[in-house]
């Protein structure tokens, strides 16, 4: 069973662009790698964890209705950020932990792409000492 359905993937991308802005600049290959990395990470987690991530995405989508009368997707970017910051810093522990887990997946999907290393000034070498001894 796929870890997320199409609608969940598309919502994850939407949240992802607030958490990791350069995600918006990925080309098709980068977006495919983003999905593969996250799908693999979810696949190796226990089923309960996958279910929690799906439930957290639903909550994230709908919770702003209570405060602003609009879903997360309908909020302007600045307000989306404010809501995410509340989840990170002020929300009850379970929600904080849920957001931490979601952020971790998004960071993994983007910064886990070795192909992007040069864009964030990370170009390791198997013979790194050559750079020290040069």
């Amino acid at each position: 069973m796929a870890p997320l359905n199409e609608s969940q993937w598309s919502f994850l991308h939407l949240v992802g662009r607030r958490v990791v802005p350069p995600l918006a600049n990925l080309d098709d290959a980068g977006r495919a790698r983003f999905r593969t990395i996250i799908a693999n990470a979810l696949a190796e987690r226990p089923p309960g964890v996958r279910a929690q991530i799906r439930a957290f995405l639903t909550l994230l989508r709908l919770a702003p209705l209570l405060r602003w009368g609009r879903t997360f997707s309908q909020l302007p970017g600045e307000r989306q950020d404010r809501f995410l910051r509340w989840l990170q810093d002020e929300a009850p522990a379970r929600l904080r932990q849920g957001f931490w887990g979601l952020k971790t997946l998004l960071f993994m999907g983007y910064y886990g792409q070795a192909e992007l290393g040069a864009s964030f000034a990370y170009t390791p070498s198997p013979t790194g000492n050559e750079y020290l001894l040069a």
Partner: protein
Amino acid sequence: MREHTFDIVIIGSGAGGGAAAKELAPLCREGARIAVLEWGPRLAEHEYTGRETEMAGRLYFESGGVFTRDRTMTLAFGRAYGGSTVVYTGTSLMIPERPVKRWGVPGLTWEDLRRRSLKYIRENNVHLLEEERLNDNNRLFQAACERLGFRVEQFPINVKGCKGAGLCNLGCPNAAKQGTHRVQLPAAEAQGVQVITNCKVQRIEGRGVLRAVVEERSFGLPSPWEPGEHLVRARVVIVAGGAVHSPALLLRSGLGRQLPALGRYFTAHPALILVGEHPRSITNYYGHPKSFYCDHFAERGFLLETCMYFPFVTAKNLIGFGEEHAQLMHRMDRLQMILVLALDEALPDNRVTLDRAGEPVVEYRFSEPVLEALLESMKVSARIFFAAGAQRVHAPAGEKFLIERHEQDHLDELITRRRLQPGRISIASAHLMGGCRMGASPADSVTDSWGQVHGVPWLYVADSSLFPNCAEINPYVTIMAFADRVAEAVRARWREV
């Protein structure tokens, strides 16, 4: 189901299992049949690619992100031919006298552990890296500590032909790190010990009977045994699956009823990563990543170490998101990093237990002294970054994402207990200890000082789960010294069991 019979079976091939295998291997000449059952894969050399997510998936349980029950800490531990010695940085310290005295285990002396540790320090080529191979990330830490009057020491490391890939935590792509996968296990195999990879031991059923399953994987060399279920009989069983899986296996096998301390007194050296940004590019991911440590504050409950992590691990340890996070991440070549480790007391309620499926769950609560130590360690680290010339610092418990250089006199207001909320910040551990602690009595320990499980003469433990309390240093050499003791006991007793 296939059946196999051995004299000695070792479960796990890391620092403990690998060292025990090598020490017992000479018994093969006397006709002893010895096997090591390792859950993880044995990678072919070309499979050490250095790619972060790929290698994390191949070499760590859950890619290095196993959660504690309340999801406030992630645990990183290896699963491979060589266990966690494949993925550590090779730092090889002799345990100081103080913690061993504090443990107070009858029959276990610091002199004995020191003697055995020295053997592995020689055997695994432990030495100090030459000065010209120290990168800026390490030199800046050393110089700043000295400037501030903090005691700072160089880490001895166990490398041979290190080319400075800086990828130690992803498995060295140059085969330089001298873990048990390079030293003890090949030596044991050469003497006749069989190593069965991809083999998970599910439970111990009665006297020396193990139920195991060999798994198929899309990477690594094929296991010597066919995929599927296997029944393994042995006269002596040595459990060396690490501080999570050894207690879990013994709990699954029903030993918790007679050993109330089983799984308990788990300690982890909870750790945080701090980042300082320099105004220019520094050498940080070239060269060995971990050359210095500062134990100046050990009495106050924490250690500081140099470190250099990979992009994803760095990103998840920066507490924040959005533009400011992305901007800092896009200057990886300017980042200096410090790892802080809290010295956490072994508490009975911090423990490994089982879920309904029999899989391990780690219950861990941060004590107030640990949280205080983490808070203090962040302030000290920030001082070190600024003394090293950093422009700005990210501290996980910062009131702001970045503390600027001109704010360095206000660290007490800018790094606060209010922000140090477990579940908000990324606390991780790679030094998992306890759960099968050594001791004199089955009331509060699991094994005697030679690793024999209380009341079970054919069952031993030889790994990090033996620590009665935290090691206060990187624990690998001490684990090998423990395993050496266990092997000595088994050599003396295996025929009569």
